[in-house]
């Protein structure tokens, strides 16, 4: 009898797939969960973007002492901003978020402006509150515009070209194209794609490792001629296929959601077409095969289902924490970034969305790193499956 047989391997894999797919409740929850989470995020982003845009357009400016600056009020109203004169208790209300900002006009504003002295307006805001930032930004711009307009008129009256007062003009050229700016939103998508590649495998990995011990089917299995390598590979293949199913479901969910939600109307030309879909799958396929390997190696540790479960939870949180490296990093990514598992996948997925070219070396990392990790994990998994300590002295 041969020590390793592909026939037995495929028998194991086929049985595990049948067994896993028959657990309809878990399978449905896992697949439905990951398939729905992508579209849900897209819809959420849509509403967030819509509400930000709506708030910037339909803005109200609370102005304290508005009566001292009637020209400013008229200017703002012409620019489509409603003015709320003299909001009571404005500092407290800015602090508690009822108001995003407040403009405070000095009582001697009109007098100072008329006599050519510098007149002061104070912008009261809370910089730590993110949602107020676009509104504060818009009002700052408008007040500056008003000031520039008056300054220019004065200089023209005195026969001086406005350019004289501004020897240097700072022009802003934002290098992030519209496409790139929208991709920042879509980084969330990279995260959820990886999330699908993780979630799809958890229930299945738990079932074929801890579940096998819980049902007490491991021992009978080991008394048959099946080799632990065949068992390990068969189980891995079955879990990986289920995981691949979850990843595909999630990607199709994105594809459909981004076709249905009218993001283009908001000036966010999100692109998730055939090119992005292919790019995502090219990154996610090796990932979808690696994750089950790691989860199985962890899941096989421990004599009891409970031990296996807690060991597996540890693996899940490890995988979940890695993309935080690029999530939180402020500086340019170092060269080894793409070689860090999970984190690298995250970086390359983001690149795919930004429509940037992906280097051959990066593609190599996307396939070589998962292959290597998977190999190590599978060896560990097979050794644990066959370890008699796991059976002895229960």
């Amino acid at each position, binding site marked *: 009898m041969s020590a390793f047989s592909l026939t037995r391997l495929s028998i194991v894999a086929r049985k595990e797939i049948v067994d896993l797919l028959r657990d309809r409740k878990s399978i449905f929850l896992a697949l439905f969960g990951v398939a729905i989470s992508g579209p849900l995020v897209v819809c959420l982003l849509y509403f967030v973007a819509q509400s930000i845009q709506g708030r910037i357009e339909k803005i109200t400016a609370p102005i304290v002492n508005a009566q001292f600056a009637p020209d400013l009020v008229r200017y703002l109203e012409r620019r489509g901003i409603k003015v709320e004169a003299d909001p009571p208790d404005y500092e407290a209300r800015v602090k508690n978020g009822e108001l995003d900002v407040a403009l405070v006009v000095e009582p001697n504003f009109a007098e100072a402006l008329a006599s050519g002295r510098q007149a002061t307006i104070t912008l009261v805001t809370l910089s730590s509150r993110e949602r107020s930032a676009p509104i504060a930004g818009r009002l700052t711009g408008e007040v500056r515009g008003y000031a520039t307009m008056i300054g220019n008129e004065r200089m023209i009256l005195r026969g001086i070209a406005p350019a004289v007062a501004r020897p240097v003009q700072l022009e802003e050229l934002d290098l992030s194209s519209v496409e790139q700016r929208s991709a920042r939103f879509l980084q969330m998508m990279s995260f959820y794609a990886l999330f699908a590649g993780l979630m799809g495998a958890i229930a299945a990995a738990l079932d074929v490792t801890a579940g096998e011990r819980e049902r007490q089917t491991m*021992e009978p299995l080991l008394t048959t001629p099946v080799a632990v390598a065949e068992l390990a590979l068969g189980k891995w293949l079955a879990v990986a296929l289920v995981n691949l199913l979850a990843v595909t479901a999630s990607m199709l969910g994105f594809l459909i959601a981004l076709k249905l939600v009218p993001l283009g109307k908001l000036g966010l030309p999100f692109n998730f077409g055939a090119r992005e879909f292919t790019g995502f799958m090219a990154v996610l396929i090796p990932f979808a095969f690696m994750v089950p390997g790691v989860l199985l190696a962890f899941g096989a540790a421990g004599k009891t289902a409970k031990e296996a479960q807690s060991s597996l939870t540890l693996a899940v949180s490890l995988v979940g924490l890695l993309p935080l490296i690029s999530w939180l990093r402020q500086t340019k990514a170092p060269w080894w970034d793409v070689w860090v598992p999970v984190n690298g996948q995250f970086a390359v997925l983001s690149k795919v969305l930004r429509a940037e070219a992906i280097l051959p070396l990066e593609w190599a990392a996307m396939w070589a790193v998962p292959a290597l990790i998977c190999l190590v994990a599978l060896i560990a998994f097979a050794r644990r499956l066959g370890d008699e300590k796991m059976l002895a002295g229960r």
Partner: protein
Amino acid sequence: MIEIEGLCKRFTVRERTSAFALKASTRIVTAVDNVSFNAKDGEVTGLLGPNGAGKTTTLRMLSTLLSPDAGSARIDGADLVSERAKVRQRLGVLGDAKGLYWRLTARENINYFGRLQGLSLPDSERRTRVLIDELGLHDLADRPTQGYSQGERMKVAIARALVHNPQTVLLDEPTNGLDIMSTRSMRELIRGLKAQGKCVLFSSHIMQEVAALCDRIVIINKGRAVFSGTPQEVLATTGLDSLEDAFVKLIGSEEGLFA
């Protein structure tokens, strides 16, 4: 045919003196200590002993789940350690763990093991059908095993162990938890295996069962084989006329549970 020569198994046990102790101490427990006996074809051999005597560990070593620390054993001439694959093919094992795949049907459970034992798909399916008929499982053979009763589960586990028609059969407490009817049909099954000329080794702590079935008895206590012979020899050696009294005398303790 099973030949066992001086089989030993030791476990390293880590234990704490109390639930709050920080340091665990390790202790070496000898579960099986120099056990030797033979079990012949066409005979039923009973492995008898109190709880914790080493019966399960002995059977686990014979079924290649654990490797012995010392000694050797041969199944139909194949060495337990060096010819493991051959041993596994010759053996049918109903071990201590008798779990089934809940979501698979009885037929699928049995067939899976047939395929793993190296039977071709038609052969495996045919053997599965035969066993389902013999064990009276046809009414529920195509239902998931989740809703089976204890006795029905035991039958599937037995069929799974016998699917490749092994020459040597190991049964670890096969009547544990069964009702009277199921126990009787299990006895019938063991007698049937004996009639087919197979070598059956089964463990039990129930005297009556051993007396009713066994051609030979091996009594194990604290990891040692304290007696090996026919039921008549047990009585003759001890000079007692009840097997139960003889058993208690041979293991040298009246304490039983409290030993």
